């Protein structure tokens, strides 16, 4: 196998890897800015320079020349090379800044140039703390600046579009943002204008940077030049916890991180997953973060004699729900939801079986024409495929209404969704409705006999199956009131969580929502009915699902890990 020597370490390689990527893959850090694995390689930042030598060959014979001791004679390229664009070849000898003073000096000097007109406003910059420029200036940069002149001032606070703000002074002209719009999203809305010290990226006159994937440029920008209109100046990076999760506004199941401070989700950023979303995330998947913080219920409620919803204890609410189901018996209809996890929908099916009622289907959320064949889909909920694989079908509104009218349905159990819209409030006058709701704006509350606040995807544990049949997990990113040990064990911890105590000044217990995950509520309702529904946390529930349900054979939390796993495709057709 061909091999290269990097800083004296001999490594084998296959194919034609580029040096920078090869080094990164082998844990050898090389400073770089413009290179991005998903985009073309312009080699314009010059930060990734290395010294490369190749074995000398005899012109006539093509043989590698050797010195007296039989070692190949290495001839170095006259100038340093950019590792991002260099395709490695057999026998090459590479020196990074670790073993070459020349490279170290070159990287320092490049950095000095990059910083000449940089405003050095890290103390007020959103990128500080996770800024490649900051980190690399610290690691590979010069001690200080020798530039004693006026810095070039470029436009600041430029709204490129409705979601992205540019600070051109911070920009190092790596062109990643421009390449994103040219090569990945193909909106071609950005370009670099002017030249020399004057250049920076912007939209041409009359064009707004409003494509549905615009916010990805914020993530690819290696400095703080591009920031989010929404998140600008909201929090410092080290104040937040970052929990791996799944985006919920489309059925693609794009992988994301939820960033939480003080128990509020402040932003959502993409989490790379080559099988699903690569490095990208649609703007809608990011901007939905407010739903986790706003309009959340204050606790369980039941409808009192006066006909209004009244706050009660969890026990009371659960026993009300149980007695409604008991009274209805076979007249109880259960509605699942594409917003709820596989575990919760499956528990709903189990509860229905126990009470003799019937699952009438799941709520799907189709917005025809919304999808683009990439990360945005017509389906605006994360788990319709999961529901289908559990054998559920989308609820048929007409059929349901007919059955409500002829009185065969006397109670309706709605899991984590809103049936008003599919049905009208008038349709539900005669029925007792139990709803697990996320928000106080859920219109089913108007007709609910018992309202049980449910944990959202940012607060629970569970599985979603995306439209390609890829099963992935969500993890709790924020704490809810009375969170169970199961939830806490899975929780991402912030620095304050890890090192703080409740007596610290910054310790904050606000924004704990009084809700419970449905995988706690459904078994509790069953228990109040005297029935038994598997309990014991979502991990065990998934174990049971994979044993009892063919479509989920082999699925476990361990197998899904952080990147998810594909489910067998054949089942998909059968259920559909």
């Amino acid at each position, binding site marked *: 196998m061909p091999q290269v020597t990097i800083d004296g370490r001999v490594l084998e390689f296959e194919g034609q890897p580029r040096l920078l990527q090869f080094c990164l893959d082998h844990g050898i850090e090389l400073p770089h800015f413009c290179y991005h694995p998903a985009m073309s390689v312009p080699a314009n930042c010059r930060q990734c320079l290395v010294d490369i030598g190749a074995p000398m060959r005899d012109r006539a014979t093509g043989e590698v020349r050797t010195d007296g001791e039989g070692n190949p004679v290495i001839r170095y390229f006259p100038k340093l090379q950019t590792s991002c664009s260099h395709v490695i070849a057999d026998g090459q000898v590479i020196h990074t800044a670790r073993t070459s003073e020349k490279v170290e000096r070159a990287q320092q000097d490049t950095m000095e140039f990059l910083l000449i007109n940089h405003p050095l406003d890290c103390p007020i910059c959103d990128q500080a703390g996770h800024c490649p420029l900051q980190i690399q200036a610290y690691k590979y940069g010069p001690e200080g600046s020798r530039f004693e002149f006026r810095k070039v001032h470029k436009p600041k606070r430029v709204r490129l579009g409705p979601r992205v703000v540019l600070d051109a002074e911070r920009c190092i002209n790596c062109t990643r943002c421009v390449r994103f719009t040219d090569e990945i999203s193909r909106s*071609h809305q950005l370009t670099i204008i002017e030249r020399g010290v004057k250049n920076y990226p912007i939209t041409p006159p009359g064009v707004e940077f409003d494509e549905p994937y615009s916010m990805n440029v914020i993530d690819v920008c290696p400095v703080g030049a591009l920031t989010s209109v929404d998140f600008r100046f909201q929090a410092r990076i080290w104040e937040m916890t970052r929990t791996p999760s799944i985006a919920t506004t489309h059925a693609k199941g794009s992988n994301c991180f939820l960033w939480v401070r003080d128990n509020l989700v402040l932003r959502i950023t993409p989490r790379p997953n080559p099988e699903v979303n690569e490095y990208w995330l649609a703007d809608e998947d990011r901007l939905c973060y407010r739903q986790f913080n706003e309009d959340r219920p204050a606790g369980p409620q039941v409808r009192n004699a006066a006909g209004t919803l009244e706050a009660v204890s969890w026990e009371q609410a659960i026993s009300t729900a149980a007695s409604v189901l008991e009274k209805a018996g076979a007249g109880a209809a259960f509605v699942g939801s594409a917003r709820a996890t596989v575990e919760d929908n499956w528990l709903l099916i189990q509860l229905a079986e126990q009470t003799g009622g019937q699952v009438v289907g799941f709520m799907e959320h189709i917005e025809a024409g919304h999808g683009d064949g990439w990360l945005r889909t017509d389906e605006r909920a994360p788990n319709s495929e999961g529901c289908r694989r559990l054998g559920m079908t989308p609820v048929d509104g007409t059929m349901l209404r007919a059955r409500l009218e002829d009185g065969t349905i006397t109670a309706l159990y709605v899991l984590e969704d809103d049936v008003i819209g599919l049905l009208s409030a008038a349709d539900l006058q005669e029925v007792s409705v139990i709803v697990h709701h996320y928000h106080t704006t859920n219109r089913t509350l108007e007709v609910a006999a018992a309202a049980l606040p449910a944990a959202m995807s940012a607060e629970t544990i569970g599985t979603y199956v995306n439209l390609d049949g890829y099963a992935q997990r969500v993890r709790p990113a924020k704490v809810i009131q009375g969170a169970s040990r199961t939830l806490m064990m899975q929780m991402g911890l912030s620095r304050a969580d890890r090192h703080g105590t409740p007596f610290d000044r910054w310790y904050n217990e606000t924004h704990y929502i009084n809700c419970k995950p449905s995988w706690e509520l459904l078994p509790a309702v069953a228990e109040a009915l005297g029935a038994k529904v598997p309990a014991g946390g979502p991990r065990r529930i998934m174990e049971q699902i994979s044993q009892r349900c063919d479509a989920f054979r082999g699925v476990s939390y361990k197998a899904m890990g952080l990147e998810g796993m594909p489910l067998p495709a054949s089942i998909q057709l059968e259920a559909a």
Partner: protein
Amino acid sequence: MADFIRNPVVALPESDPEPHFSAVELVFTDGEKDEIARRIKQYPTADGAVMWVLWLAQEKFGFLPPEVLRLVASALDLPYAQVYGVATFYTQYYKGKKGKFVLDVCTCFTCQFCGGYDMLAYLEEKLDIQRGHTTPCGTFTVQEVECLGACGSAPMLQVSNGSYVHNLTRAKVDAMLEALQQGEQLPFVSLTLPQDEDEMGGNRRTDAEASELYQTPPASRATQ
């Protein structure tokens, strides 16, 4: 464009200026279209022809406001943003309306050393305008530009993307302004390097209307 050295501020271009040309005016004739098609064929991809088509558009419309850039982009089937990026890179493409004569004074490295800024300041004073501006009568625009590739005869300037005026002195500037105002065409001057003096009577180019012998300008000239 005020003095960039003393006040280095890059302005934001106007985000959506009023168009200068109507939809009726914004067309290429069939002849022009054929020529564009022919140029595109000379390159592997259409982007190769972008500079030429921008040039054509500038000759036709006088300058390149956004609506003309859009026309160029659609003629080449390229993204408008890309065409805009190319047009802003070169000072030779006029993004706004200019005077009858555009005086591009080089203030890049060599010219700067040899007195480019003095010449620029002299022009500004003489025409009573700031760089980047046009005289009220609309005759002259003065611009500060980067290296025009004639460093050997620095300081120099170029008139309306055409003739070069080499080895500038105040007297030469005066004479040039006078000539332009009189409606005279400035000749295309070829500069001759010492080593070429023996050949072709000192003139390297047979198509040049005039030639100047190479001199070492200007500091050492004073001592000669």
